[in-house]
């Protein structure tokens, strides 16, 4: 597969390490009342769709950036690649 890195252009997927569902960005608040349940869901409950999926890839043999890759798990079509840092900020993560 080829991942079109938003900063570096097309790179072979062999340069990347796959992590999984991009929902891992949404780490729960440790002080929330339901923190235990929220972390349980965060750690163990993932969607595994046959179709479009947002997932985290790490450009380990490259610029060390984490990417959010929107990929169709059925035909491997990649429709969008973003820097995970931008996605994290857009989802409200900061300090």
């Amino acid at each position, binding site marked *: *597969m*080829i991942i079109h890195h938003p900063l570096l252009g*097309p790179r*072979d997927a062999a340069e990347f*390490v796959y*992590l999984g569902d991009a929902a*891992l*960005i949404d*780490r*729960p608040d*440790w*002080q929330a009342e339901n*923190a*235990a349940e929220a*972390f*349980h869901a*965060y*750690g*163990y409950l993932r969607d595994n769709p046959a179709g479009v999926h947002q997932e*985290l890839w*790490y450009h*380990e043999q490259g610029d*060390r*950036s*984490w990417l959010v890759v929107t990929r169709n798990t059925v*035909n*491997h*079509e*990649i429709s969008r690649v973003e*820097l*995970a*840092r931008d*996605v*994290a*900020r857009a989802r409200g*993560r*900061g*300090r």
Partner: protein
Amino acid sequence: MSQVNRIKGGLIDRSTEISFSFNGKAMQGHPGDTLASALLANGQRLVGRSFKYHRPRGIFTAGSEEPNALVELRKGAAQEPNTRATVAELFDGLEARSQNHRGSLEFDLMAVTDLLSPFLSAGFYYKTFMWPRAFWEKLYEPAIRASAGLGQLSMEEDPDCYDKGYLHCDLLVIGAGPAGLMAARTAARAGVRVILADEDFVMGGRLNAETLEVDGMPGADWAATVVAELAAMENVRLMPRSTVYGAYDHGIYGMLERCTDHLAFSGGKPRQVLWRVYSRHAVLAAGATERPIAFGNNDRPGVMLAGAVRAYANRWGVAPGRRVAVFTNNDDGWRSAADLVAKGVEVPAVIDTRDAPAVCDVHGARHIRGAAVMDTKGRKGLRQISLIDGQMIDVDCLAVSGGWNPNVHLTCHQRGRPEWRDDLAAFVPGRDLPPGMVVAGAANGAMTLAAALRDGVAVTERLGYTDTGDLPRAEDEPRDGAPIWHVSQSRARAWLDLQNDVTVKDVKQAHQEGFRSVEHLKRYTTLGMATDQGKTANIPALAVMAECTGKTIPETGTTIFRPPYTPVPIGALAGRARGRDFRPYRLTPSHRWAEANGATFVEVGNWLRAQWFAREGEQGWRDSVDREVLMTRRSVGICDVTTLGKIDIQGRDAGEFLNRVYCNGFATLAVGRVRYGLMLREDGIAYDDGTTARMGEHHYVMTTTTANAVTVFRRLEFARQCLWPDLDVHLISTTDGWAQFAVAGPNARNLLRKVVDKAHDLSNEAFPFMGCGEVTVCGGMPARLFRISFSGELAYEVAVPARFGNAMMGVLMEAGREFDAVPYGTEALGVMRIEKGHAAGNELNGQTTAHNLGMGRMVSRKKDCIGNVLSHRPELLREDAVKLVGFRPVNRDTGLIAGSHFIGQGDAVMMDNDQGWMSSVAYSPSLGHSIGLGFLKRGDARLGEILRAVSPVHGREMEVEVVPAHFIDPEGERLRG
């Protein structure tokens, strides 16, 4: 009487004669020959025995689809089995041998299996070898293995080398026939980067095998002109002898280039190169494969595909027979007859299944209309054919044409399904092609020359690459046909799959036994499962199946094509990754010193680390390791610990960041101090540990375990970019940059005082336990000093820039001479950490928590950190959780066994009574007996208790006493001294 069948013409160099041998017999050929064309030229019709029935077989095709003519090439270690003679280029000195016979090729002792054929029909494996069950392993499987398989491996190491590579292009053209050449030329003239690949060693495809003309010249000459034009263009890469074998995601293609297979000696160069081709677009112009018609005894040497027969005549100047009849159901078969007659070969008859007028005039041939071949005669080669009306004709070669199948294989590699076209009676590429791929020419159902040329241009222009040049002139040759798949009147066995010996009867039987799906048919009969993957067999077999079920062929379906298109040697897939080059190796900075000083090395990940340093007179590794431990604890020892991961962490928020990635607090760590840190996974399981030193206000240096250096860095980047993107933190690995040495033992400070420049005060007050700082050594060399201890002794780690590491090891040893300093390896390191009760990889095994490790109180509840919330789950904090404790054998002479489980006195050895496990053991030279670390339920509350340590794997058990994990200096006085 060499080359008895050589006739005029052909693309061979008659000015040079080259010698080769077949089964030891000397033969001659010319440059430009394949082994198959040369064998035919020399009158060798019988070239092998069939897989199952050991039937005599000859050359059937003229290309990579060949099912029969599999031979062994070369000898000794270079011996290569199962090579298709039809694609093996002839070279001087080539040695070829036939396969799959006991005794000689002419008198194969295994031919008796042919008489047993009634018992070896479809599914015979499943039926015959079922009972009794015990016979399978002892009798059936060895017997089958002995008789199965075709060629022989040399059982020696492959003497050749292989390589891999990466190519990039705008357009990959697969196949250099008329359509491929036009596609490549169109795109090349448009100025884009083109790769033109063809499995043959001469580009031109069928143009080289036909007498058709393009632009008024012979097709082969026209092809050569186009190839020459392309070769002169900088944006074109011509890749003959290169098979594109697979279509992968996102325009990536796999291609095997055969670099030296056509040479007697590779000259040390890679024999084959496996290319990964990155393309924006690809034109599949793979042409078409002729299919046979099945009739009785249609497998005799001399029965060949009609297109192959005229290819041998036209391209190679070889007559596959003296009297050649043609059996066809379509117009194309007639061209074989016409071309042979033009070359002076006798053609007694053209047998056409259609009751239709002659397609062309074939001098001297009888046209037999509405007829079919029913059976053949000739023990080791065709002698006579008989027709359904009883006529018999003496021939030594029969050219059979059942029509042509577009080579759609690569269109299916991403689950694409071909579509049936009634007018062609063939499958053509479907609409769901791999993204970026278009198909042109015969592969796309454009079956005539003119159509193929047009199609090659048209599909390329559709991709946006245009050329204003004229289309070459050519004619649409007649291509009508009426499919007939097998001659139903035949009583004798009629072969569908020649390589796997599957007959029409086998398919019918499979149907009778209830196999309806094509995929089941394939697996039950083994149809299409040989090295040729049924290129000539699948469609006729499918047609027979359709006939049985009363369905159409498209309703019956087609099997899925998967890579590779033709076989790819394992050597090519391995590439350079053999032996020592299997993966890279990493050396520590003091590697050369260690080599020169008797080190035995151990692989730790990719690292080679000194395991121990043997001295003269030592009887085994234990002697060396015991000495290294004792000398270190008595005076001072030195160990290269460079392999531990080192991560430079800088930023205004670096401290806060560390506070969140370690479970224990880092917010209060002062500049010049080091702290032990434990990292958890988000699920609360301990992940990695190490020390982090605060070198400056915004500057920390983290160490990780050797094993987790890469993944810890990855996780830290995840935390930095995905969890807390607005913290000012920057990470960079410096693992390889610093040569780091542990200097441990009571004399560690005394030794370092001789090396560290005098300006730096190393007194216990100025540089206490868990202190760190930048210093200089050896007169100004920048260095880092950390007062940390893994051994439990007074110890430091000193780091210098890696290029000085080898010298530093020498200097430390030289300075330590007066203290009897000893270098120690990973074994002594391991012994000392067990003596000190430090957890390592065996304890941080992905199942244990901080609570289990006795570090539960380190997990702060007052801050957020990775793993904090889930590590406080009640189940993980159970009162009876396992705890890390020490063990010693009640009988001190006994050696403990790692992996033993703890069972109470008098309890049965079963999981219900399992109380924990022994994770690490060592012989402690300091104590004089075996010691162990392990996890025991409520272990910390059970000191002094006697248990059984049971190892069912070893069939042993022993009594052990629970003791504190710190065997040495439990109060830590030494390391603080």
